[in-house]
């Protein structure tokens, strides 16, 4: 996930404060310099950085903090609150017409990800809002752009309206609207050609499209890796078209995504969605407050909960928990668990959501392929072995056979056995925990400490165990 480096930097600068009982003015100065540098490194617009550090400093310098019981935590809180404010207070929903044809228009620079995002959005809204979307291909300039949208439409089984590249976008659009009405579509998502915000001719074309479509949303697609220029791009598009929302793409990279921080503050454009991968279901609602937590390395428990509940049957989950608690957890359960994880998306992405895990994942090479290897090993076990893990533990010939069967090494099998053991142990400990004492911001902190592996666990999903 993005912001890794930013959160590291902030955590580093804040750690100095966290350990102290009292803050001097010099402490705060030093900390603010770190905050400033790390935000600039994260591509946050320098004007935003200036305001940000100024506000945080003012608050931190106030009496309250210096006389407070735990000044470090208070500073973290101030920074967190301020981050939240900069990014907007809550998730902004898309606007739909109550009845009739809702229409969206995707705009942005070349290569920002408009076409892919158009497909993702149509797919998501079909599921979430029960819409019957129509994708409209208006990019007649980039070679094969129309074909790209058509292919995406085929993959999703969503209708795509296209007239090749020989007609003008405005004319194509008029026909598309007719087509949508005739065929009972209630949502049009228009893909437009990427263009520079300073290209007057092409911006004129967008204005003409807007005039005909009268869209409910004009969505600016913007690459999360964009540097300081993000603000001028957004401002310019907004001035000429009136942008109603932004979609931040490629957030699955290691970019720190500072553009997210600045966008709202400088242009007042809310970020509505974010793109998290090349697959067509990798799009999520942008939650400013969760993002703020993520920036500070506080994890994102809410998103995790959302993902779990969306993808896993509650009864299944409960029976699994019971099994774990009772200590009769076996390889059948293990593989089931892995399938859940798969359904919820990438392992690496999921781990970042867990408080405390963010930093640990940094040096771990998390590779979703590992799941495949584990699956292969478990499938090389006999049914008996899967039900009764002890059989494998006790017999080296069984281990050898499993290794051969799955094309792995015996040491890999041993590691898998270790994983299962650790997880069982871990669940037993968790079952002894008092739920009321679990700190929602830091569930890891409430685990009893025994054994060095302990801190690496999270949520009973035992994710780091798949490290081979």
């Amino acid at each position, binding site marked *: 996930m993005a912001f890794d480096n930013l959160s590291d930097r902030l955590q580093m600068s804040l750690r100095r404060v966290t350990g102290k009982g009292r803050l001097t003015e010099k402490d705060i100065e030093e900390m603010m310099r770190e905050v400033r540098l790390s935000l600039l490194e994260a591509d946050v617009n320098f004007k935003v950085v200036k305001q940000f550090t100024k506000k945080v400093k003012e608050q931190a310098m106030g009496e309250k903090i210096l006389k407070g019981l735990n000044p470090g935590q208070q500073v973290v809180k101030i920074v967190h609150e301020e981050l939240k404010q900069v990014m907007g207070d809550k998730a902004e929903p898309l606007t739909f017409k109550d009845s009739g044809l809702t229409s969206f228009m995707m705009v942005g620079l070349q290569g920002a990800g408009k076409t892919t995002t158009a497909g993702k959005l149509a797919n998501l809204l079909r599921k979430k809002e029960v819409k019957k979307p129509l994708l409209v291909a208006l990019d007649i300039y*980039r070679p094969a752009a129309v074909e790209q949208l058509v292919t995406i439409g085929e993959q999703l089984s969503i209708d795509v309206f296209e007239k090749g590249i020989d007609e003008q976008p405005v004319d194509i659009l008029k026909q598309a609207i007719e087509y949508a009405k005739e065929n009972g579509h209630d949502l049009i998502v228009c893909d437009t050609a990427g263009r520079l915000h300073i290209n007057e001719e092409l911006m004129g074309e967008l204005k003409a499209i807007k005039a005909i479509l009268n869209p409910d949303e004009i969505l600016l697609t913007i*690459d999360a890796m964009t540097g300081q220029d993000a603000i001028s791009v957004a401002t310019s598009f907004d001035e000429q078209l009136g942008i109603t929302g932004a979609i931040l793409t490629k957030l699955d990279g290691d970019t720190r995504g500072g553009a997210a921080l600045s966008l709202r503050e400088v242009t007042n454009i809310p970020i509505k969605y974010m793109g998290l991968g090349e697959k067509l279901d990798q799009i999520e609602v942008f939650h400013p407050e969760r993002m703020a937590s993520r920036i500070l390395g506080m994890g994102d428990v809410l998103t995790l909960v959302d993902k779990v509940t969306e993808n896993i049957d509650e009864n299944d989950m409960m029976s699994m928990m019971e099994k774990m608690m009772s200590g009769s957890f076996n390889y059948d359960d293990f593989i089931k668990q892995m399938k859940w994880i798969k359904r919820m998306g990438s392992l690496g992405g999921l781990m970042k959501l867990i408080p405390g895990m963010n930093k640990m994942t940094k040096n771990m090479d998390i590779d979703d392929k590992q799941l495949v290897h584990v699956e292969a090993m478990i499938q090389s076990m006999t049914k008996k072995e899967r039900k009764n893990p002890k059989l494998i533990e006790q017999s080296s010939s069984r281990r050898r056979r499993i290794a051969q069967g799955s094309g792995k090494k015996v040491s890999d099998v041993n590691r898998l056995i270790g994983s299962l053991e650790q997880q069982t142990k871990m669940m037993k400990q968790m079952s002894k925990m008092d739920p009321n004492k679990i700190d929602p911001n830091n569930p890891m902190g409430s685990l009893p400490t025994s054994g060095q592996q302990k801190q690496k666990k999270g949520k009973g999903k035992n994710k780091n165990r798949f490290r081979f």
Partner: protein
Amino acid sequence: MCYNVNDFFEERSDVMGIFSKIFQSKEKRKNAQKYKIGMEKTRTSVLGNLQALLISSNKIDDDLFDELEEIFIMADIGVDTVIKIVDHLRNQVEINKISKPGDLTDMIVDEMFQLYVRDEIVSSNLDIQDGRLNVVLFVGVNGVGKTTTIGKVAHQYKERGKKVMMVAGDTFRAGAINQLRIWSERVGSLFFAKEAGSDPSSVMFDAIQYAKEHNVDVILCDTAGRLQNKTNLMKELEKIHRVIEREIEGAPHETLLVIDATTGQNGLSQAKIFHEVTKITGIVLTKLDGTAKGGIVLAIRDELNIPIKYIGLGEGLDDLEYFDIEEYIYGMFSDVIE
């Protein structure tokens, strides 16, 4: 590479000022026009600020240096590199007892020039030789303009009478193969592709066999865009590189990392990781015709010693220029120098 700061400063006093003289030549100015146009916004906004700042300042003090720092950061030059530039400037000011802010202009230009040139001869030419099959591999994150750049480079070598073939190595993204095919038709070059979803390494392998049989001079290999933190995709790229290496000794002769000029600090991470996986021989900086500053190239050169080969200035076949640091900086600073 070995880089001694003290040596640098001793030699620099000779270099100082010479650089602005270079720009007196009219021909240079003419060549720089295209850069100027491309970087218009950079000059007027960011570096216009620089000039305004230098004129309005009465003395050289910490505030001035802080503001300089900010201006460079706004140009997307990497934070570490900016700190380095500013530290050098501070030193220089102290050593040479400079007190007038206006005198800083030459120093700043020279500083950036030295930062890029590093007392080396930096060539923007690709290593394309007669009498062999030359392989150029294009890599980069999604949406930077790899395919478009291949079209432009193919055009350039086609014009020079080379037999050029494009290889559709992006078998993943919808429409990518056809996008390249259309470019090859525009340019009039050969085109090699397998069906969508094929293993890109096998595409490369077959393309090389075909190229050998048909006496192709240059093959330009497209690859799927990939974010540098995706382990599996980077492994796939490693494999592509390995297959090419195995089939032709010394190939790929150039591995070009394509970077979008709007990219901020992440450009450094891209360069670092792609360089680890497939030794990058040069950078292509695209979309410099927008308002983006592209300053990250200086940081990449500074930290990784990778030269910039080309810049992309538009969507036409001819909108590709060899990177020339003098023209690049001239484009940035011409207001200040004149």
